């Protein structure tokens, strides 16, 4: 079996799964739908492994293949095929996406068990995986845009999955519209590429680009900036990030899969994929890197003040993607992707653990209400801790190696990039701080009411069904969210998925230990050989120096969190009071929502109101009514027009036409 066949199979299996579940929703039992969905993704993972083995059997230089099924839209000089492009980068993404997705499907199998929308959920989830694979396998810009938009739609559909909640439908709309703005950026970039290079195919574009574009030229810079609009919208980078926290309205497995592990990292993939262009446009690359840096710091400060468990983790996701964007923009391609992979593991795990806790809390997400879960749910707590350690870059966990590899590169590249490394370390301090703020507030201490209920009775607490976002009573006859909740302690599929991810979160970093092994970079580097930036390699000594600093910062952050939220519980309130303006800024999310509302939403609605209430009535209708009134002024003619003229004209036309037709028939014979 050739490598392209493996890739096509991996792509089509999730689509098939989605279709089978969607079309069979009346006949398939819920269990079967879940099994079909999970198996489809599991098989796709097998295909991805097949593709990897195939690729490893080839020369490192020859590891890229284009394959197409049929002409998709080829006319007038545009030549768009339904084609895929398989190389180290896409196979890497293929493995990460299918691997993590399989586990999250497994988790969902347990987590969503009592939900009435089970079929719909798995159908959408499979469709999402199909879209994501299309995104990473696409062989040209048009198909990339298709995958790009499909994941956006899947994200929308799953955010507003519980569609009786108005908060969920609103959040879905927001995510969709912002993502469409991103799509437009990509479309315009594609047009510009076509104008300059006359093709949309990846292979040709990247081969021609260095010949056609001059380094730093304005055209290639414009292309890259437009690509960045797409990347920022999808990867929730400032200022296109406001949809991500709201996206937490979706069921927790969705947050785990789409809004943490896979889709939101598409921007990182895009920059890595088009690194040839970004190398030619250093200004755009620097803008991307600075945006990543700004996002990682700003999101870190917001995560520090969020009291909603899932939203806090969402801001953390934004912040971590900031690292990746910064990495791939400054030339640390493989390093950025390394962090993408480890982040997929530990962040998916964190969301799974959070979901388990939220289930135990009867869907409440407010950490102010949570405490003492260490005693109530040992396994979930352990997993939360494992995910948290990896996120906080605790020494020897996966996040420790991946994050520091980016910062070490930045430091070695020197100049202003040194400052990025410093900013990154500052972000790492924030990360450790906000991560362990969550952990120290949720796990230790006296069990809260819900946790105590679980300890006492061994059963989950079930309060009235309330939408946690707006305290609205849920619609009881709908059946979603499901009536009963599921936690990892009571559901084998959930526990297995979490345990496997926990293993990855702890040990995945060991494939890339400086001076010891070079598995991942050795595999990925040839894909970036056409960019001179990939030749910068920090020495082993520099890497370990960076790792030591990283370890110190991580431990410092965790220790500080311990002081603030365990040892001196009164201190945070005191700090809040002392640093009032700063706290207000953070807790109001730096006022991005308000600014967008003021600058874009309100003006658009005002224009709309003006158009429909004033312009349409007085200008458009006025033209006709004016004429009519003039006619009416002439006296009585309107009646003639209304009753006689038009009708007679119509009849006359019919009669005339019939007569002419008759004439034709007679004269033709």
């Amino acid at each position, binding site marked *: 079996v050739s490598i392209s066949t493996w890739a096509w199979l991996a792509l089509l299996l999730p689509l098939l799964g989605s279709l089978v579940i969607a079309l069979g929703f009346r006949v398939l039992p819920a269990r079967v739908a879940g099994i079909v969905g999970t198996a489809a993704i599991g098989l796709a993972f097998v295909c991805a492994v097949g593709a990897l083995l195939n690729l490893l059997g080839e020369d490192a230089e020859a590891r890229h293949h284009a394959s197409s099924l049929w002409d998709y839209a080829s006319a007038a000089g545009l030549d768009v095929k339904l084609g895929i492009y398989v190389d180290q980068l896409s196979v890497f993404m293929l493995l990460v996406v299918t691997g993590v997705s399989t586990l999250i499907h497994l988790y969902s199998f347990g987590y969503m068990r009592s939900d009435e929308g089970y079929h719909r959920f798995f159908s959408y989830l499979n469709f999402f995986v199909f879209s994501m694979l299309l995104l990473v396998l696409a062989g040209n810009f048009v198909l990339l845009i298709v995958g790009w938009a499909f994941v956006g739609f899947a994200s929308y559909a799953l955010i507003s999955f519980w569609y009786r909640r108005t908060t969920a439908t609103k959040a879905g709309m927001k995510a969709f519209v912002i993502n469409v703005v991103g799509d437009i950026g990509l479309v315009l970039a594609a*047009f510009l590429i076509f104008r300059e290079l006359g093709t949309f195919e990846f292979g040709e574009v990247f081969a021609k680009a260095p010949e056609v574009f001059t380094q730093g030229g304005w055209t290639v810079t414009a292309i890259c900036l437009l690509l960045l609009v797409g990347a920022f919208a999808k990867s929730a980078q400032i200022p296109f990030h406001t949809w991500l926290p709201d996206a937490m309205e979706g069921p927790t497995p969705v947050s785990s899969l789409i809004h943490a592990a896979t889709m939101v990292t598409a921007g990182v993939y895009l920059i890595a994929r088009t690194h040839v262009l970004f190398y030619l446009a250093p200004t755009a690359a620097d803008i991307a890197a600075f945006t990543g840096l700004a996002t990682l710091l700003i999101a870190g400060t917001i995560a520090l003040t969020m009291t909603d468990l899932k939203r806090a983790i969402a801001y953390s996701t934004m912040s971590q993607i900031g690292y990746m964007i910064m990495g791939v923009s400054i030339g640390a391609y493989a390093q950025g992707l390394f962090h993408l992979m480890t982040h997929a593991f530990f962040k998916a795990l964190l969301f799974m653990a959070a979901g388990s806790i939220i289930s135990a809390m009867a869907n409440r997400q407010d950490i102010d209400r949570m405490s003492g879960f260490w005693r109530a749910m040992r396994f979930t707590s352990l997993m939360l801790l494992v995910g948290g350690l990896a996120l906080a870059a605790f020494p020897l966990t996966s996040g420790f190696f991946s994050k520091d590899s980016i910062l070490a590169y930045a430091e070695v590249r020197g100049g202003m990039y040194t400052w990025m490394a410093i900013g990154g370390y500052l972000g790492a301090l924030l990360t450790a701080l906000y991560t362990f703020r969550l952990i120290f507030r949720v796990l230790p201490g006296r069990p809260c009411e819900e946790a105590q209920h679980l300890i006492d009775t061994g059963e989950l607490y079930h309060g009235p069904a309330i939408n946690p976002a707006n305290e609205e009573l849920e619609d009881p006859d709908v059946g979603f969210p499901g009536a009963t909740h599921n936690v990892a302690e009571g559901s084998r599929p959930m526990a297995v998925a979490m345990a496997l991810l926990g293993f990855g979160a702890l040990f995945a970093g060991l494939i890339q230990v400086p001076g010891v092994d070079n598995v991942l970079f050795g595999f990925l580097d040839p894909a970036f050989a056409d960019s001179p930036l990939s030749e910068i390699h920090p020495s082993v000594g520099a890497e370990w120096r960076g790792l030591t600093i990283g370890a110190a910062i991580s431990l410092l952050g965790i220790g500080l969190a311990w002081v603030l939220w365990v040892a001196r519980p009164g201190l945070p309130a005191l700090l809040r009071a002392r640093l009032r303006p700063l706290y207000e800024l953070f807790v109001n999310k730096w006022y991005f929502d308000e600014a967008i509302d003021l600058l874009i939403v309100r003006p658009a609605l005002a224009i709309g109101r003006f158009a429909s209430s004033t312009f349409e009535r007085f200008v458009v209708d006025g033209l006709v009514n004016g004429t009519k009134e003039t006619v009416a002024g002439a006296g009585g003619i309107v009646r003639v027009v*209304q009753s006689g003229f038009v009708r007679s004209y119509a009849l006359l036309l019919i009669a005339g036409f019939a007569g002419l037709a008759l004439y034709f028939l007679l004269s033709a014979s």
Partner: protein
Amino acid sequence: MINSLLWTPLIFALSGLVLPKRAVGWWAAAGAAVTLGIAIALLAGFDPSGGLQDTVDVEWIPGLGVDYSLGIDGLNVFLVLLTAVLWLGGTAFAAFREQERPHLFFLMMLLGETATLGAFVAQDLLLFVLFFDLMLVPFYFLFGAWGTDREGGPTASAATLKMIVYTLIGSLLMLVGAIATAIIAADGGQISFSIADLAQDPVAEGSQRWIFWFFAAAFLVKMPAFLLHGWMPDAYRAAPLPVLAVFSGVLAKVGAYGFLRVVLPLFPDATVQFQEVVLAIALASILYGSVMAFTQTNVRLIGGYSSVAQLGFITAGIFALRADGADGAVLQMVNHGLVVAPLFIIVALLAERSGSEDLREMGGMAMRAPVLAALFLIVTLATLAMPGSANFVGEFYILNGLFQAKIVFAFVAISGIAMSAYYALRLYQRTMHNRVPEGVASREIDLRDGLVLAPLVLCIVGLAFYPQLILKRTDDAVQTSVAAPTRAAEPGVRFAER
């Protein structure tokens, strides 16, 4: 073949008059089905590089140089198919429901089909004008007599009157323009209305300038374009929904088609000269239509104004005066027809379930109607030109053409895409999601309506996988159509001065 395509609906319409009341609807649907069969056969035998084919050319009124001349080429082959598909859908949907005076209703329905097909296949300018005007007649009766009077608004006949006044003025201008073109072109010799002949030797630039606008007025009103759309809101609210489905799906396209068939080849110099003016109108239609679509609460008007915006895209594609833009325009005409017709059928279903056509009185209907919700979702995504749909390919081609020709216009036009995402999704969410208001009785789509809706949705899905089906067959004809203005645009090669 082409004759049977054209006259089959009319034959069924007339023969239906003698049938009993209950059978007439089915007879009409059968007629539409037979027409569809012929249209499919025409497509099957179509040669993408064969130019004008399946022609019929008979002298009709020799003294006036008018021929009964029909033909199929890349410009109209899919529009003919679209007409046949949508008419079958609309007729069947109407046949499932009781109609007052069914004999007349279905007579008018099928007469409308013949007239529309005639406008698409006519290759003689006067014949085209004649069919173009004839289209108006059945719809006048259908809107006026079977439409709904609006409380506190105009009656159905008043609304229809407004539409007729608008379109009639356009049509009369076009008639004058057509006659003038033939007479000026003949220059005292033998008059010919053949479009091919007239395109061979366009009239002088000075004459082109005013005749261009006579034709453009008729087409822009039909679409309708910004500022000429005054008839649309009232007429759309009055029209019976199955009729509106075919009206909005097909008739608006005749206007866009007219630009490609008549205006570009016959008035190339004026086309080049007024390119930016028409583009500006198109952009205004996109922006205005979109803005209106997201402020309306009447579901019909959301569909109506979104059509204004979509037709704006199509016009912009044509007036990019590049093959890719025009290819996209033809593709998009088919796409938009395939999307807007099911949309209005769904609107009818939603109105039946909620007893209202106001968004504010709808909601939560997806719960008990998953199949309807799924079909509606696909239509919605195609409406907003989701990448992956054929609509996206159409818009991509259109905007690419515009981008390469007039980059500033492209940047403005593309903002319409973001707005379309909002208004289309808003329509879907407000009807299918959120809480269920009082008075909404959600129930699943029944088999009969499913039989109408599902095939249309399947067409959308099928085209999404293979838009090349259309692009491959239209490209040649489109290239010919845009060739004249392209040559005219070259400095110093003004056609009229040869």
